[in-house]
C-alpha cells in the first residue's frame, strides 16, 4: 500500500506510483489533443447521449419544479385580474369584428355601385392562338375561334399579364386580333398612381407603346403602371396595359411623350382570354335596385330600358341590358 507511508525503499516506490500517473496523464493529453485537432468530442457526446440524458434531466429538475410551482400556486387575485383582462380584450375584439362587418357590407355596396356605373361583367373564354403575324406594320394574331363560338368584333383580349389586344375580324371558325403594339391600335389608359387619362398607341415594336400628347404639367413618371380606363367601352377598366419606361418632351416642346412596355406577354404562351362584355352600356344615375335580382322579376325590368343616354355600343344591345348587368 503506497499510502501507508513506508519509509524504506522510497525511490522505487515513488517511481512505481508515478507510472500509472504518467500513463493516465499521457492518455488524457492524447485525448485532449485529438479532440482539439479532430473535434470528435461532439461525436462521442452524441454516442453517449442516452447515458448523459438522465443527468441533464435531473439537473434541470429544480428549474422545472420552480416553474411548475409558480404556475400551480398562482394567486387567486392574479387569476381574477387575468380573467378580467381577457374578457375585456374579447369584448373589444367582438366590437371590432362588428365594425369590420359593417365595413365589408359598405364595401360590397360600393362595389355594386361601381359595377353598375361601369356596366361590365367579366365573361371569359379561353382560345388558342393559331398564327402570329409580327412585322413592323402588322402585329396580329389569328385565333382558333370565330362567330360560331360567339366571338364578335371589338372583344378585348387579355392574358395573365394584362391587355393583349382586340378582335378586328371574325370569320366562321377563325378570327383576327390586333395586338396593342400594332401601329393601328390605341388603348384608352389611365395612370394608376395619379389617375391621369391618356391613350397608348402601338409602335410596331413588340416591346414598346407610346403615349404622345401628355400635357407638360401632367403627373407621369418612370415606373408608373398604366391600366385601362374603361372609357370608350372596348376594354373593361382596371386591366394592366404597361409600365412607363421613359418620359421626354416632344419635338414641339409643348407636350410630353412617354414610352411604355406592354404588360401582356406578347411573345409567350399560346392561349389567350377573350373577354365578352355583353353590355357596353354606361348607366348614368343611381343604379336600379332591382338590377340586383332581375331573374325573379324580369317583366317589370324590361319595358322601359332605363338608360336616358343612348347606348355606346350597338343598339341591339339594349334588350340584353338586364341580362348583362345581372352577370
Amino acid at each position, binding site marked *: *500500500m503506497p*499510502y501507508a507511508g513506508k519509509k524504506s525503499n522510497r525511490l522505487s516506490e515513488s517511481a512505481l506510483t508515478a507510472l*500509472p500517473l504518467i500513463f493516465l496523464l499521457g492518455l488524457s493529453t492524447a485525448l485532449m489533443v485529438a*479532440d482539439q485537432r479532430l473535434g470528435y468530442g461532439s461525436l462521442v457526446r452524441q454516442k*453517449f447521449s442516452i447515458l448523459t440524458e438522465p*443527468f441533464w434531466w435531473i439537473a434541470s429538475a429544480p*428549474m422545472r419544479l420552480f416553474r411548475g410551482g409558480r404556475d400551480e400556486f398562482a394567486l387567486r387575485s392574479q387569476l381574477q385580474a387575468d380573467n378580467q383582462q381577457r374578457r375585456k380584450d374579447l369584448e373589444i375584439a367582438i366590437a371590432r369584428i362588428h365594425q369590420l362587418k359593417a365595413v365589408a357590407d359598405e364595401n360590397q355596396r360600393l362595389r355594386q355601385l361601381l359595377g353598375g356605373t361601369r356596366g361590365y361583367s367579366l365573361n371569359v373564354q379561353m382560345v388558342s392562338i393559331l398564327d402570329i403575324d409580327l412585322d413592323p406594320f402588322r402585329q396580329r394574331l389569328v385565333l382558333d375561334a370565330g362567330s360560331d363560338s360567339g366571338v364578335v368584333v371589338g372583344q378585348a383580349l387579355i392574358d395573365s399579364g394584362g391587355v393583349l389586344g382586340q378582335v378586328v375580324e371574325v370569320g366562321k371558325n377563325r378570327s383576327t386580333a390586333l395586338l396593342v403594339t400594332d401601329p393601328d391600335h390605341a388603348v384608352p389608359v389611365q395612370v394608376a398612381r395619379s389617375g391621369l387619362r391618356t391613350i397608348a398607341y402601338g409602335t410596331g415594336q413588340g416591346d414598346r407603346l407610346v403615349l404622345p400628347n401628355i400635357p407638360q404639367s401632367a403627373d407621369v413618371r418612370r415606373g408608373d403602371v398604366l391600366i385601362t380606363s374603361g372609357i370608350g367601352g372596348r376594354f373593361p377598366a382596371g386591366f394592366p396595359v404597361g409600365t412607363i419606361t421613359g418620359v421626354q418632351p416632344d419635338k414641339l416642346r409643348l407636350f410630353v411623350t412617354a414610352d411604355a412596355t406592354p404588360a401582356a406577354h406578347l411573345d409567350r404562351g399560346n392561349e389567350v382570354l377573350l373577354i365578352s362584355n355583353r353590355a357596353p352600356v354606361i348607366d348614368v344615375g343611381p343604379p336600379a335596385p332591382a338590377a340586383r335580382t332581375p331573374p325573379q322579376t324580369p317583366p317589370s325590368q324590361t319595358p322601359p330600358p332605363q338608360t336616358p343616354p343612348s347606348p355606346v355600343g350597338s343598339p341591339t344591345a339594349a334588350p340584353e341590358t338586364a341580362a348583362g348587368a345581372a352577370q
Partner: protein
Amino acid sequence: MIRPPTGWLIHGSFALGLIFAVLPLPAVLQSVRPYLLAMLLAYWLMEAPNRVGLGTAFLVGLCADVLTASLLGEQAFRLVVLTYIVQHFRARLRFFPLWQQAVTIGLLLLNDRIISWLIHLFAGSPSHGWLYWLAPVLGVLLWPWLYVLLDLARLRARERS
C-alpha cells in the same frame, strides 16, 4: 481498520457531483461554480483509499468531460493530477484540523484552476473573467460542510450494515 464504506455511497456521491456540474445556474454564478467533483474525490481519497485511486479519477473525469462541454480528457487530466497530490499528502491531510484541511483543499483547487487555465491557453479557448479564480474560495467555504455531511452519511451507512 474500519471497513471502507459501501460502493453505492461513493458512486452516488460522484453521480451527484456530476449533476452539480451541469446544474443550470445564473450566468454570474456559472464561473464561480465550486468544483464539487474534485472535492468529493479528495474526500474519498482520504477516507477510502482502497476503493478510489487514479483510475477512478480518470474515469470520473472522462464522465464529466462527456457530460459537460469541456475538452475531452481535460477534467480527467485535472482530476488525475489532483488525485496524485492528495495520495501523496494523504497521511498528513487526514489529521489536519478541519479549517487547515479546508485551506489545503483550497490550494489544491487553485492548482486545479491553474492547470485548467493552462489547458485553455494551449487549446486557444476564450479566457475567463476574474470570477474564475474565485471558485476555490467557495470551495474552501464549502469543504467543512461537505466533510461533515459525508462523514455522517458514512456513519449512517456503516450502522445499517
